[in-house]
């Protein structure tokens, strides 16, 4: 097991290095010159000389390899450089915003987890009957509805019409509810189908027949026998969905005026603030990679066959 974790960690580091090269290349190959924007901040009518001065100051006229090396070395030491837009340290901005995005993604994940299990369970319990049809339809609708639309509907219903939750802000649990629901709704819809289909497959297995012959109820078979069997598949899908939630944060955070990493990334992209964009991309990629490793380990722990194979 330890060897397996060590191997996954080594691959993760390699992947992270390749990803850093890729995100650096993507950002520098984008059209438009960031030096113009920075020069414009200093003086509204920046001349060519002003722009050249900015390029010199920030090393933007240096060879790409040198720029990459400089950036990577800083990133390893937690120094992601200075934002070209605000002049603030990018590392400090990331730190102050990490808790906001973590709250959003964690809450969204809990919503997705609970909602998907509930909907999937209801569908499986009353398989091919009215509740199953309704939950299947809801899941299809949920999986096809983009987050920003879900958010707008929730805000309209719960804030504008009923005044239950605030429309925006990060000020305590009441203000967290709508962003969590918005972020968790789409993954919940997708995951509920995984649960429902998983249950259907599990319930067709011979051990279910054995359990039934022992007189166990459908509910207890689902809970006792089916859930452990669908766990590896479900965890795999949950991991992927949590990964996409980080991308979803880019949409949800501005909608609810949460100053998280998603919002920082979006602002960075708009301004071509590539120090910020690079740092955010690196955070996203690191999160994906760590998540993958954790999910792999969890799957191995929940599946005795994999545990045996990987040990």
């Amino acid at each position, binding site marked *: 097991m330890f060897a397996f974790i060590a191997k996954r960690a080594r691959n993760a580091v390699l992947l992270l290095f390749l990803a850093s090269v890729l995100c650096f290349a993507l950002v520098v190959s*984008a*059209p*438009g*010159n*960031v030096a*113009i*924007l920075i*020069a*414009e*901040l*200093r*003086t*509204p*009518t*920046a*001349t*060519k000389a*002003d722009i050249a001065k900015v390029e010199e100051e920030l090393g933007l006229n240096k060879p790409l390899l040198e720029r990459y090396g400089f950036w990577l070395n800083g990133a390893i030491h937690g120094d992601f450089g200075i934002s070209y837009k*605000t*002049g603030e340290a990018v590392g400090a901005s990331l730190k*102050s*915003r990490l808790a906001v995005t973590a709250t959003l993604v964690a809450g969204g994940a809990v919503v997705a987890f609970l909602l998907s299990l509930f909907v999937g369970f209801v569908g499986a319990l009353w398989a091919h009957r009215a509740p199953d049809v309704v939950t299947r339809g809801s899941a299809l609708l949920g999986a096809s509805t983009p987050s*920003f639309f879900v958010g*707008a509907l929730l*805000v*309209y219903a719960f*804030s*504008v019409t009923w*005044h239950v939750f*605030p*429309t*925006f*802000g*990060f*000020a*305590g*649990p*009441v*203000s967290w509810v709508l962003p969590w629901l918005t972020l968790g709704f789409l993954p919940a819809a997708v995951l509920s189908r995984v649960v429902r289909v998983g249950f259907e497959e599990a319930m067709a297995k011979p051990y279910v027949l054995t359990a039934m012959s022992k007189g166990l109820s459908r509910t207890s078979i689902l809970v006792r026998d089916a859930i452990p069997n669908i766990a590896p598949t479900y965890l795999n899908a949950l991991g992927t969905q949590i990964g996409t939630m980080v991308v979803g944060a880019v949409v949800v955070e*501005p*909608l*609810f*005026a949460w*100053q998280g990493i998603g*919002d920082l990334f*979006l*602002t960075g992209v*708009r*301004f*071509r603030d590539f120090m910020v964009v690079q740092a955010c991309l690196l955070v996203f990629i690191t999160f994906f990679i760590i998540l993958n490793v954790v999910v792999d380990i969890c799957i191995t722990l929940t599946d005795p066959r994999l545990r045996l194979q990987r040990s």
Partner: protein
Amino acid sequence: MNNNNEFMRIDRRSFLAGVSKLLGVSALSSILPSIVAASEVKDTLRIAIAKPAGDINPHKYTGLWGVQDLVFEPLVKYGHDGKIEPGLATEWSVEDGGRLLKLTLRKGVTFHDGTPFDAAAVEWNLKRWIGLEANNWMNSSRLYAGTDIVDDDHVNVRFKEPVLGLLQEFAYVRPVRLLSPKSVSGDGSYKAPVGTGPWHQATAGNEGSAFERFDAYWGDKPSFKYLEVKVLPDSRGRMAALRAGDVDLIGGAFVSPLTATEAETLKGAGIDVVIDPGTTTMIMAFNTSRVEALRDPKVRKAINLGIDRAAISQVLYRGLATSTGNLFSETVPYSGKRFDVPRRDTETAKSLLEEAGWVGGPVRQKDGKDLAIELVVSEEQVPGSRSVAEVIQSELQEIGVTLTIRSVDHASRHSDIPERKFDLAFFQTFGAPYEPFGTVVGLFLSTYDNGVDGKLFIDPEHLDPLVLAAMSAPEGEMEAALQKVYDWLHDNDAIAPLLFVPGIWAHAARVKGFQSPATEYDMPYENITLAE
């Protein structure tokens, strides 16, 4: 051991009770501050802003104009219709043929930190921006000669040459507004936003900023005690917040922009919407140096006649924008005589293209080349321009012109436009208080480097002399000189003015007495009272 296990055992009942209590405490902890805050909300004007106020140092270009306007004041103010009004200076005179500005300062004014506002404070502030290279885009900075303190209440500012639009420049938000001389560190670096304005900053962050009324303010004090600017980057979020009563005021080009469609939606929901004619004009530029066809005035005229301005105004701007054939709206000083708004006339447009040698169809050709033109659009720079481009694309197709739309982001626009990598592009005039010379000099004089804004139209041979003549004309002849510039642009179809961009604001029912600001760079809090 068994007893210990008994103690540690959590049954379903106690687990559920514990979770319920935890949720109850969490909910209460988030509701309690809301109850406390509700009493403060009554005395607070809450304004949505699209992005954080940033560093609002008045001598830098980083902060949000509207927020800087809350804290910092100018010596003279730019009023409605371009009238210069007293600010921190009660009287002024421009003498020595425009080379000397004599200022009489307001008495009894203090900065938020108690520092007296006097001639020394004015001189200290001037030294922080005037004459510095970064500010040479302003005539007053480029031609600055020196400052003389006459006494505590009188200051004279000298210039090497007469300064065009001197008083207007002194009314700008940045870099001219006044900071307390004590709000800097020992090395002179900016420390805190301390001005003389009616609001002093209490807190600031990424979520927004909070301000308290400055009770020692020299002028009419606001009727409410607190003002908050809340960052709401998404326009749908801003609209929902206004409708739900979470903010009181949204709108303005630089505060929290609203589109015409959004304004109509809010109006339909019973929200008060205020439309101001605006002082900026949306114009389509022709780049004659890149596209040979556009060098022919007949082709430019045909394109001008091919555009249905009334339809764009009615459909895309929901009738809130006024279509135009002029460079400036009448609210801009020296905006010139009114030209007729070009009416869409496809037959005349087709005839003009025929005369210019562009024949055939569906795409017209000349010497085997298609009449194909590219239109550069930046939605961030000119909001709503993408839709306008699509309408123009389909309209020009009817007269045999193929238009390709190239959408670019803010950064790409700011590199492509100055480098003149466009055939057609949308521009917006700068608006008050920068007009008319901000646009006339900045966007038309070929020898003036206005950096990232680029040029709307350049013709060193014919247009530059007219612009230079207007710049150097004495006060009495300025209007006529500017009219010559406008006439030349109009007669040569050098530009395609489309519409005056409206200033759109929306406010909650409890906001009374709202008036649109004189410029889009000001925050409109002055006449507001808050109803219970």
